[in-house]
């Protein structure tokens, strides 16, 4: 079947063909390819689905041509496993010759792709992962999501100013949880607050009972909570079961626990929880109302903060291409993205020209019932918050 001559012929052809393509660059010039790497299966799949949905929605609304170029999305599923991310990024860059890599559900995935972005000199647009260090790992990384420092420091400041003196913390024991804890502690204790109890919950923890009992016995004014999105519902239910809501221990934290995606399933236990975050589906701007309505119409549920990060991520790519007149040179695109300002469904945002990280408003919100559904209702705004994980240096 496979005689030696045929193999040789194929070998020769595959060696020559890429060379041919490279010598005729006009072929690739009509389209811009974006390699989108997201967790579409596995525990982080809701992140991937939200971002993918939001990008599709944006492209329906704004069309798929920018500056004369057709935008082509190549979606790959890495299931949030960094080894997959690296392999997929490599395939996208080498075989598909993408002009951008984008997506990245978790920090290790974003980090795994960073050296490839540097090597290939193409922008890596991070739309989800939230630890501070990410943008420092490659001069080609731009982020449109958030950092945990942004929301955790703000809730720390807010808590001390609003009569919360003693806080017990319950955070998941992995990088984002530890980030959230460190930044919260710094700001909360600097303002005169006291941490009365600190518990780190293992990531694969089935039952919160003993940890919650410890929280209850420490009798704090509030508990600071960060658990990965999926566990938020279980946590809130057990919090209510143990009567912590009735003993007056409030839940505060960065808004990941109260993601719009999960909020409605948590039940009334979540009522009254105060969190600081970049986005709520209840954000009262006209632009957001349109965004939520369009998203609901297309996908049947409301968008969460991951959806808005994806929506802004593709917007940034569109605007950068407009600015370069369709040129896909990585350095020019990154230059174009630096300092870019726009109005997002979450409010005004911009890209910090020094750190390439997003600068955005952080809102303090409280879970309330609106039209029979639970929403994070915003009641205070901290404007143009930078990532304090980097600005402190």
């Amino acid at each position, binding site marked *: 079947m496979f005689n030696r001559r045929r193999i040789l012929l194929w070998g020769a052809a595959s060696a020559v063909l890429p060379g041919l393509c490279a010598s005729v660059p006009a072929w690739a010039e009509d389209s811009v390819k974006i390699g989108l790497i997201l967790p579409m*299966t596995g525990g982080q*799949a809701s992140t991937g689905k939200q971002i993918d949905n939001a990008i599709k929605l944006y492209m329906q609304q704004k069309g798929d041509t920018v500056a004369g170029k057709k935008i082509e999305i190549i979606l790959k599923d890495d299931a949030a496993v960094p080894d997959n991310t690296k392999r997929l990024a490599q395939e996208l860059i080498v075989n598909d010759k993408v002009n951008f890599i984008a997506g990245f559900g978790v920090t290790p995935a974003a980090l795994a792709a960073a050296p490839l972005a540097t090597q290939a000199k193409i922008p890596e647009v991070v739309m989800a992962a939230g630890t501070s260090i990410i943008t420092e790992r490659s001069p080609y990384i731009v982020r449109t999501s958030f950092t945990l420092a942004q929301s955790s420091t703000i809730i720390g400041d807010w808590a001390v100013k609003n009569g919360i003196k003693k806080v017990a913390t319950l955070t998941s024991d992995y990088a984002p949880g530890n980030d959230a804890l460190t930044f919260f502690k710094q700001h909360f204790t600097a303002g005169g607050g006291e941490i009365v109890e600190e518990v780190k919950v293992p990531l694969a923890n089935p039952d919160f*009972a*003993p940890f919650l*009992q410890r929280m209850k016995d420490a009798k704090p004014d509030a508990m600071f909570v960060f658990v990965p999105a999926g566990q938020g519902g*279980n946590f809130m*239910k057990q919090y209510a*079961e143990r009567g912590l809501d009735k003993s007056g221990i409030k839940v505060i934290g960065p808004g990941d626990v109260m993601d719009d995606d*999960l909020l409605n399933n948590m*039940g009334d236990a979540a009522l009254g929880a105060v969190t600081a975050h970049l986005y709520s589906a209840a954000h009262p701007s006209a632009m957001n109302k349109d965004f939520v309505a369009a998203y609901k119409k297309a996908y049947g549920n409301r968008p969460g903060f991951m959806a808005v990060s994806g929506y802004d991520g593709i917007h940034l790519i569109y605007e950068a291409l407009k600015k370069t007149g369709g040129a896909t040179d990585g350095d020019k695109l990154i230059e174009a993205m630096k300092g870019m300002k726009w109005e997002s469904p979450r409010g005004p945002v911009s890209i910090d020209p020094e750190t390439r990280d997003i600068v955005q408003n952080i809102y303090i919100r409280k879970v309330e019932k609106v039209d029979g559904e639970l929403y994070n209702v915003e009641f205070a705004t901290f404007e143009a918050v930078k990532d304090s994980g980097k600005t402190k240096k």
Partner: protein
Amino acid sequence: MASILTNLFDGVAYGMLLFVLACGLAVTLGLMNFVNLAHGAFAMAGGYICAVLVNNSGWPFFAGLPLAFVGSAAIGVALERTLYRHLYRRSHLDQVLFSIGLVFMSVAAVDYIMGSSRVFIKLPAALEGQINLFGVGIGRYRLMIVVICGLLTLALQLILAKTRFGSRLRAAVDDPRAAIGLGINVPQVFAFTFAFGCGLAGLGGALSAEILGLDPYFPLKFMIYFLIVVTVGGSSSITGPFLASLLLGIADVAGKYYVPKVGPFVIYTVMIVILLWRPNGLFGRTAAR
């Protein structure tokens, strides 16, 4: 003092839950000598059956529970008759590979059909909150778990020790050839036992959704806990896994409460110490076969 008792109660409830989830595995692994790592998949099936009935079709929670049992048992029978029985005589490695493959298929199938986000079963209001008994906080839901699981354990023990079916099962396990010679339909007894184990897992899955969470990765996430219960308890009786579950549940809760920094490792430490002391588990006998 009150918090000690609350913790003790939480530990007992957690242990009971582990027992119902794992005792089916003790039966297949210990009594039938079949390594069924897909046990958690039946627990997940029960959880999703109950969730769909209660959340989507409006069934009351207490009607969902027996159906979780029946549904998982039915899936168990179907798979036992079509797939599992071909593997009884194969090596343990084949059984492990087959059942772990089944786990991955169930994960993918549930992810595809039900979506990957976590599912919560709507509970009746009567099961929410805590009862305060002399200062000891007792969760209503956990109390229900203790009652249901306690009754189940008693019933299981009675069935195995006192009924005709129990003696047939024990005979079929101890010496299948002699049992066949005495006119016992061994394949039928095994099929029934397997289905019963799957049903228990399904009931456990439905009960655990509230406390452990229910998503398509359930069978993989909790496989380790099932195996710990069975190895520590020894797999030749029901009492062994029962006491092991209680011990592990209490140790786990106490460890996480009193020494939260190392709490998650307490359960593994207990396992290692017990296995060093009694390599066949607390109540294990040295294998007769």
